[in-house]
């Protein structure tokens, strides 16, 4: 299973210890993120996101798509890809708007009992809705990036989705056999 560690270990520890994400509050599915942090590894060259923003994105990415019996968003390098998108894909205007919305998420987390985990759960309900607050808007866009980045990553495309690049034929009606049948 490919493992990509995109989080600066020391910076992550410092952030966690600052209280924004107390270790005692870390849910089970965030343990995978922490494991990735603990495993060390080089942080990519910083692009658009600062350390705090990177860690917040990594936390949310791991909440949305945690490691289970299949790789999670951290394993697939999603935070690093989002950093690239924000830095080099987004226009300056779009980037500024996105970072401002991330700040709204952060402010919401700091003012909410339960911190970022609780805020993430709350913001997630806004997916598919209109008339969003800045924090909801930031989360919706971030989640889109997380899901898109995960499922278009090489390990997920190849190992989980098992994408066949050259199928060689088209069959319009394939019967899906129930598991366990020949």
């Amino acid at each position: 299973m490919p493992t990509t560690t995109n989080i600066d270990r020391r910076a992550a520890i410092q952030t966690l210890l600052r209280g924004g994400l107390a270790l005692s509050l870390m849910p089970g599915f965030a343990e995978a993120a922490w494991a990735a942090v603990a495993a060390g590894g080089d942080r990519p060259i910083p692009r658009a996101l600062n350390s705090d923003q990177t860690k917040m994105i990594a936390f949310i990415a791991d909440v949305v798509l945690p490691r289970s019996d299949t790789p999670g968003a951290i394993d697939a390098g999603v935070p690093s890809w989002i950093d690239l998108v924000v830095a080099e894909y987004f226009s300056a205007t779009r980037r500024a708007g996105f970072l401002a919305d991330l700040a709204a998420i952060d402010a919401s987390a700091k003012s909410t009992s339960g911190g970022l985990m609780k805020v993430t759960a709350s913001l997630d309900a806004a997916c598919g809705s209109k008339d969003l607050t800045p924090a909801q808007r930031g989360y919706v866009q971030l989640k889109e990036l997380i899901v898109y980045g995960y499922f278009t990553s090489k390990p997920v495309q190849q190992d989980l989705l098992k994408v066949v690049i050259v199928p060689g034929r088209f069959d319009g009606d394939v019967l899906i056999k129930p598991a366990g049948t020949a």
Partner: protein
Amino acid sequence: MKEQYDFDAIVVGSGITGGWAAKELTQAGLKTLVLEAGGPIDPAKDYVEHVQPYEVPFRNWGDDRRLLKKERPIQTDCGPCDEIGHKFFVNDIENPYTHADGAPFSWFRGRQVGGRSITWGRQVYRWSDLDFEANAKDGHGNDWPIRYKDIAPWYSHVEKFIGVSGAREGLSQLPDGEFLAPMPMTAVERTARERILKGFNGERLMTIGRAAILTEDHNGRAACHYCGPCDRGCITHSYFSSIASTLPAANATGNLTLRPHSVAAELTYDAKRGRIRGVRLIDANTFKETEYKARVVFLCASAIESVRLLLNSKSAHFPEGLGNSSGTLGRYVMDHHYGSGASGTMSGFNDRTTFGRRPNGIYIARFRNVSTQHSGFLRGYGMQGGSSRRDWHRGTTMPGYGADFKKSLLELGSWSLGVAGWGETLPHADNRVTIDPTVKDKWGVPAARMDVRWRENERAMQSDMVTSAAEMLDAAGCTEIKLQPVDHPPGHCIHEMGGARMSIKPTEGVLNASNQAWDVQNLFITDGACMASSACQNPSITYMALTARACDHAVSQMKRNEL
């Protein structure tokens, strides 16, 4: 003194119609020069249909900063102009055009050998006399100088060469052609077809799309391997492009000279002889000007480019543009208004899926104003669409998180079925191309200025598309039906046509029944500019058939020394 020619024929443009003109003229023995404004394409190096999202930095989302803002702010509004395939679309900064206030126009272009035949949608549908007689019957536009019987043999000629997959249905409004085996419909589509037929008393028929994509090896080209994104090229040449079929056939004759990087700037006119002398071009790299002379010139540069070239070819004899004695040059521009429809969820098929990526969808033949008159609008529309099982993309917008959420996205979702309309546009004199008084392209050629608008008939039809789509999805058994009205600007369908229309009389149009300019005998225009009406079918195969037919006419005249 006898005129000295550099070539027997010059063809401006190397795309869908330019390739056909090159093939037909060279096979008739004419030494033919094909001019292409863009550069050459090497399929082995340039085609990118097998590039995967993780092989490009932004996973094929696009690129806000470079593509959208800097190089292709207009082209990126066209789906295939993405991070992987943008190379086949022009740089908008180098190739500007303008539009009238309040009349946005999308002009998606490809300047390379092969033109837009590399990126086209590959849907091919014959016209019928319902279409060729429409202008005469309701009085909008001019009567076509031809009928179905005049073009039918040429449809066959083209279909046999390029290879068209499709199902024979026996519909009068959508004539059958020379089909290879059809691509399969999905289980959902087969069921929807039967239910819609029953629900609408046989009036509305869903068939598999008729596509210029090979379902079997054909004329030295391999059958489709179902990788999916044809608009990025095809290394096995399984869909029709001029690079894959017509240009190689032309080259095999030994009569073809292909000159890339050649920006046609003007058709030169010999007033004494009343003929086109040749084409003045600008080398795209060196900016050096050259004139090539020929006995006959075929304009196949795409509708707007060809009209632009004529409007830029003014002379004392043609102060309003070459071949414009009728005053119709640049007028009656059309496109298809498209995309309004509906989608829904089809339950009951969760034990079914598909294998491979079919580069084709379904087609619902026109049913409005075929046998009965609709009260809300003239003419009609066909519908295109398809079915598939929802995949992980649904997770980008739906609520949910955690391990179970991830697991659910790794599994197939429900079946979706969607259809949307492609509608006929009435020809209006005020829908037109002119030349912008100040804007020029990188090579100093004055730019086109568009003023094309949807009007009442198109609006009424768009509304009906949504209603009809929802009705059919309901009849098919869909639930969660979502109405999807859209409002793309003219040009967005990339079916721009008209501007140098064919006509029965020289006072009504630019071209005669053989696509020959009324005013200048050795000039033929066979791309979309020649169209007198738009019908609702995807138009490229009609352009191809008219091109082959016009070439036959030109060659016959040349053999008789009439040209």
